[in-house]
């Protein structure tokens, strides 16, 4: 089998992966970098799909402390405060670098300075954007800069395993999708920046190749994971029948600009859920409200609710949201003049690999940046903090790797181990008569939507756990046939395997958190319980447990801001304890 050795291996080519590549190179140009991406460089992944924009403090009337407080409040105070602080504090410099070094050009105010628009859950209009399709500008320009540097790139190669000994990562086993062959890559430092993308839900927003591979890879390699129960549902996913456009997001700026939500009875239902903030409440609140309306039967012909921006004026809507108008037109409606049917859509995973603010995971040699990491956003992410995370952490972690990689050892993995693991990931060729992975994906999407989605109950979570075990067994028996070159069914099988493993983590974490907080809502525990649950749920793979994982809780450390509920109750922190299940 082919093997290769590099100093730095970067997995993923979204905002985090590409920005990290630039910063690793610029920090230490002598490092040999290899960037591996499942799709095409800068084209696959979710930073590309960013629409609304990027939260950053630029205006003298705003402050970093306010952005920080908004981020914690939105996250219902279970964010890692040091990670959230690094986010807000790194945002101005990142926008600065994007504009003056990378070559991005964001929209301007009439006076020529950078325009900032309104998003939900924020005390100041601080979202920088390029029209309503901001991700294109950021990713095209980052890609251009990568092309300008001696950074090796392998496109349409996917990591199938992080190789290590349970405490250190020595590289990754990679599948060359085009040839259908494996490649073993030794690396001093490995950056996981594959992005999350919770596509295990019936209605989901991320790009179609997303399957939370990074989270499954890190978990299987033994990394400590956190907040896996925290999945964000965006309130306004477009409904387009059986077309795959269904689930794609109509951007948050529509609500920021004054867009209204109605149920099928024409009622502006947010008045019953959050009368003060209405449609500009945070995503967790607005998404759940829409789901409740849908489940109560006040739904439209496609089973959704409606967003209406026509009162803002057709000319304004066409000028301000041209990308959204075009997308809605593609599926047969006019956003500028009437309501459009939408549904909550699985959008983002707040949970991920536990890291420090330089991206170190619990495994030596494994760094993580972007949506693969957990902790920045707590129980709910603010719109506009997602692309901020991928780019800010791409830079920060890239800098850290640039400083540290040369000092990390290059550990050789025996050929026999590479061969053995390759055979494992090609096992689908040895079976016959297995089920079609596309059908199994359909089962998974319905299961997670119904049993572990916007509204959760213990009985459903138990049923979900059992069904996932059955599904995982079916995944093991998928059979793939034909030519190995660019074999999409093989990709489907590997994608599904990642999604089921991550679904198990979501389900276990969700059943541990017996309260409701942010995007995690338990019908059987509907209250936010600040006395007991200002805690994070951590997971780690462990074959000695029945579930194949151990689960433990840790109190949130209020290193920079005490939550209002704690100030009021003067609660004492509970000591860390372990849940043995």
């Amino acid at each position: 089998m082919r093997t290769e050795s590099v100093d730095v291996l970067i997995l993923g080519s979204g905002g985090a992966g590409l920005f990290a590549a630039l910063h690793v190179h610029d920090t230490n140009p002598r490092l040999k970098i290899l960037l591996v991406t499942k799709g095409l460089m800068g084209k696959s992944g979710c930073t590309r799909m960013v629409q609304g924009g990027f939260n950053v403090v630029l205006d003298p009337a705003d402050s970093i402390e306010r952005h920080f407080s908004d981020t914690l409040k939105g996250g219902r105070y279970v964010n890692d405060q040091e990670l959230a602080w690094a986010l807000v504090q790194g945002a101005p410099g990142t926008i600065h670098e994007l504009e003056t070094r990378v070559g991005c050009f964001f929209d301007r105010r009439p006076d020529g300075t950078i325009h900032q628009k309104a998003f939900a859950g924020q005390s100041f209009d601080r979202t920088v954007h390029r029209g309503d399709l901001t991700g294109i500008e950021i990713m095209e320009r980052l890609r251009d800069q990568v092309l300008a540097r001696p950074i090796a790139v392998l496109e349409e190669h996917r990591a199938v395993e992080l190789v290590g000994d349970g405490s250190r990562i020595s590289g990754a086993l990679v599948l060359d999708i085009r040839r259908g062959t494996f490649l073993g890559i030794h690396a001093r430092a490995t950056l996981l920046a594959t992005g999350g993308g919770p596509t295990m839900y019936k209605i989901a927003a991320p790009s179609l190749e997303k399957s939370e591979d990074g989270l499954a890879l890190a978990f299987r390699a033994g990394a400590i994971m956190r907040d896996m129960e925290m999945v964000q549902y965006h309130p306004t996913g477009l409904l387009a029948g059986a077309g795959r456009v269904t689930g794609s997001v109509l951007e948050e700026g529509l609500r920021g600009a004054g867009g209204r939500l109605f149920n099928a009875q024409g009622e502006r239902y947010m008045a019953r859920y959050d009368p003060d903030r209405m449609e500009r409440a945070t995503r967790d609140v607005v998404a759940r409200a829409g789901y409740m309306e849908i489940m109560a039967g006040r739904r439209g012909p496609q089973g959704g609710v409606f967003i209406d921006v026509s009162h803002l004026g057709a000319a304004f809507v066409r000028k301000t949201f041209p990308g959204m108008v075009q997308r809605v037109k593609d599926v047969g409606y006019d956003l500028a003049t009437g309501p459009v049917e939408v549904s909550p859509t699985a959008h983002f995973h707040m949970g991920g690999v536990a890291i420090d603010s330089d991206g170190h995971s619990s495994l030596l040699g494994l760094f993580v940046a972007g949506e693969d990491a957990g902790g920045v956003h707590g129980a709910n992410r603010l719109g506009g903090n997602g692309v901020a995370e991928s780019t800010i952490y791409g830079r920060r972690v890239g800098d850290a790797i640039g400083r540290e990689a040369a000092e990390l050892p290059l550990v050789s993995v025996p050929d026999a181990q590479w061969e053995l693991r390759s055979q494992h990931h090609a096992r689908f060729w040895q079976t016959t008569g297995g089920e079609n992975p596309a059908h199994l994906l359909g089962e998974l999407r319905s299961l997670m939507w119904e049993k572990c989605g916007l509204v959760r109950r213990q009985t459903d979570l138990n049923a979900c756990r059992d069904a996932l075990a059955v599904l995982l067994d079916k995944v093991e028996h998928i059979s793939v046939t034909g030519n190995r070159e660019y074999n999409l069914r093989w990709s489907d099988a590997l994608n599904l395997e990642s999604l089921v493993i991550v679904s198990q983590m979501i389900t276990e974490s969700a059943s541990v958190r017996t309260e409701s907080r942010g995007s995690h809502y338990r019908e059987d525990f509907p209250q936010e319980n600040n006395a007991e649950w200002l805690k994070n749920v951590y997971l780690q793979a462990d074959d000695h447990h029945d579930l194949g994982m151990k689960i433990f809780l840790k109190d949130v450390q209020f290193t920079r801001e005490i939550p209002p509920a704690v100030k009021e109750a003067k609660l004492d922190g509970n000591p860390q304890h372990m849940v043995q299940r």
Partner: protein
Amino acid sequence: MGVLVSPAFSDFVGYEVRVLTVTIRIARSNGEQAFVVETLAQQTVLDALFYIQNELEPSLSFRCSCRVGMCGSCGMVINGKESLACRTSLNPLGAEVTVQPLRHIPVIKDLVVDMEGFFSKYRLVDPYLKPRPGLVNPIVAPPSGHLREEIDLGLECISCGLCLSACDVVGMVPEFLGPAALNRAYNLVADVRDDLAEQRLSMVGQSRVGVWQCHTHMSCVEVCPKNIAPTRAISHLKRTLIRRRITGHRPRPMPKVQRIVQEEV
């Protein structure tokens, strides 16, 4: 024949309106293969390809990512015209649909092309901003001012390769840089922040590869999914090159910059 709903999407049958039976002829690496499917409202060619791959022919290969026209991964030639599969509704296409890989770019397998055929040209214009010395803050550029307007018109390129495939000149003169690369070159030449204008202009002015090859057929304009007019960028580059030959080069003044209040510590 199958109804065009993969079980992964069978929950959306509430909107299942059977509209048309369509024969889809796909130019695969080993020859043309036809599939008959029934289309539903709001479905696209990309949905059809997924259905065929999931249910009828698992060995079919195609590429896609975002499925909403933002990534430019699913470019192909549909009924003779370069299109993004994700943004091409089936219903207006009629009962016979042909799908072929992009032209002028090597095929890897079936509908998957090697985009290196696109980026090898794109790279030649040095497509990255080289910041001018002293550019330490974002520039002040009113939305209606010329600084902004010139660039805005060509900014949203998603490097999908449709224009390269549609360009007749690239078919005849394979070295021609093609519409997308020249559009990017013009964006940077027009960008007051950039320091490599001279280098780029000398590249795009070369007779065999550069702007003079463009015959203004505007095929690129017709197929661009982002409504960019590369022909316009090419004309501007031609005019800039001519003006320099006649009047010589005058350096541009440094633009005004915005003070960012909160600097990173």
